[in-house]
């Protein structure tokens, strides 16, 4: 690629050589100079090409990441791995989409009872692409819940929760519960009639539980009644507490997936390869 020349005022530009001012009859020297220049250009290019390699090398020397990455990227997935196996990563992608759109919403959202509703109005009406991003966050939640259920259904019907992946199933169920909690706490934030009263009912339902119920409800409301603190408490739970837990547990979930490997479809049996069979004899 050629780098465009910077705009230089005429006075500073180098004058082209006047005809006849070139050292005459010295063609060989000129050719040698040109070849030398070309050589230096090649060297510079090679050096430039070395830069990313040396940067990666520098990082690798200090982190030792490349064997890890190689093992992760080139690990084998069992024969018969099909589209059903993309549901987990699709859920992860939906979570990432929620995280990104959530960050942008948080830039404009104000979690105080007097301003919350107006800040959402502001996002919809005035912020550039605000309506789209809010729509994406709202429907992304639905998509994520649906994908989690599909992913869980796949795991259930393929018997993928059995030995040695029991623990990963448990982590997955906790992630499901946390996602539901996200949906519940996020519902209040627009602070319109619908979200407010649905949340009041939801918290009352929590309160009706035996033993822990009343305490949980008091914790959510920040007291026995809905107050100004309630909204900011829901906001903090929705954007700090649960996302942190979810991210950590997704890490654990993925670690176990990589460590234990994804299952093969249960209807496939391992073919005894000829050379293996011969070895057995």
């Amino acid at each position, binding site marked *: 690629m050629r780098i465009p020349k910077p705009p230089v005022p005429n006075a500073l530009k180098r004058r082209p050589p006047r005809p006849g001012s070139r050292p005459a009859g010295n063609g060989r020297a000129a050719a040698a100079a040109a070849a030398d220049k070309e050589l230096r250009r090649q060297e510079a290019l090679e050096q430039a090409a070395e830069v990313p390699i040396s940067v990666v090398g520098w990082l690798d020397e200090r982190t030792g990441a490349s064997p890890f990455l190689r093992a992760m990227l080139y690990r084998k997935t069992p024969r018969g791995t099909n589209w059903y196996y993309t549901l987990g990563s699709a859920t992860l992608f939906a979570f990432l989409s929620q995280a990104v759109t959530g960050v942008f919403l948080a830039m404009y959202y104000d979690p105080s009872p007097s301003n919350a509703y107006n800040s959402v109005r502001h996002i919809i009406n005035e912020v550039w692409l605000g309506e789209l991003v809010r729509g994406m966050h709202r429907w*992304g939640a639905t998509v994520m819940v649906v994908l989690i259920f599909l992913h869980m259904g796949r795991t259930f019907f393929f018997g993928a929760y059995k030995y040695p992946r029991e623990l990963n199933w448990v982590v997955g169920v906790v992630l499901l519960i946390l996602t539901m909690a996200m949906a519940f706490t996020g519902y209040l934030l627009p602070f319109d009639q619908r979200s407010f009263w649905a949340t009041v009912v939801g918290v009352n339902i929590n309160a009706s539980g035996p033993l822990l119920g009343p305490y949980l409800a008091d914790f959510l409301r920040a007291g026995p009644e809905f107050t100004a603190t309630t909204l900011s408490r829901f906001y903090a739970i929705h954007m700090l507490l649960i996302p942190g837990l979810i991210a950590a547990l997704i890490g654990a979930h993925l670690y176990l997936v990589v460590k234990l490997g994804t299952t093969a479809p249960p209807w496939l049996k391992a073919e005894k390869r000829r050379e293996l069979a011969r070895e057995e004899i």
Partner: protein
Amino acid sequence: MDARQKEQYLREYSIMKSEGKPFFPYAVLKDSVMACIVLAVIILMAVILGAELGPKADPTTTSYVPRPEWYFFFLFELLRIIKPPSIVFIATVGVPTVCMILLILLPFIDRGPERNPLRRPIATTAGITVIAAMAYLTIEGALAEAPGQISLKVPPRYEAGKLVAASSGCQGCHKIGEAGNAGPGPDLTHIGSRLPRQAIARTLINPTAPMPSFAALKQQDPQKFNELVNFLSSLR
């Protein structure tokens, strides 16, 4: 699974794995395609369905009828099915908690070596039953009129009274149009043709046993009370 079965599974799995393809680029390609589809669906839903914002939350009104997000509809429907107040917590907290505990314990309950859904009749049937039950409850919950909402069409001058009736919990015992419970109180859909206006007002103030009296409402807010009586006597 005993030790031998575990050993056998691990051996078979390592053979299946050795016959498979590397994660990159084969699985990564599929995952990327899926991610694009997910993003496209989210954007399409955002553009087509939008995100409505209702009127601002007002803690002083009690007439507003809450509706949960659709994936909580099955809980909502459980609440409608289970009526007696003494066991409501079974619907609200008991059933979900038990379901979640069972879900967490699933791998410790079902420890057989078989993985093919066709050869695990109990697990597969249970799974399909749960999905069907949840789908049924979700659909019922979606179609059900929210408690405290009256779909009956009335002339605009009775709308205020309708709101009072909807928010006063009449439908806990009375049917009004399609909404509400059939008992123990009588059907109010045509109450105006059975009782004159005065009789309705008298019943509201001085009702028969389980029904609460509306005398307090008449004292505090006579206009609201009148609107309620007007609405009820308009039901012919």
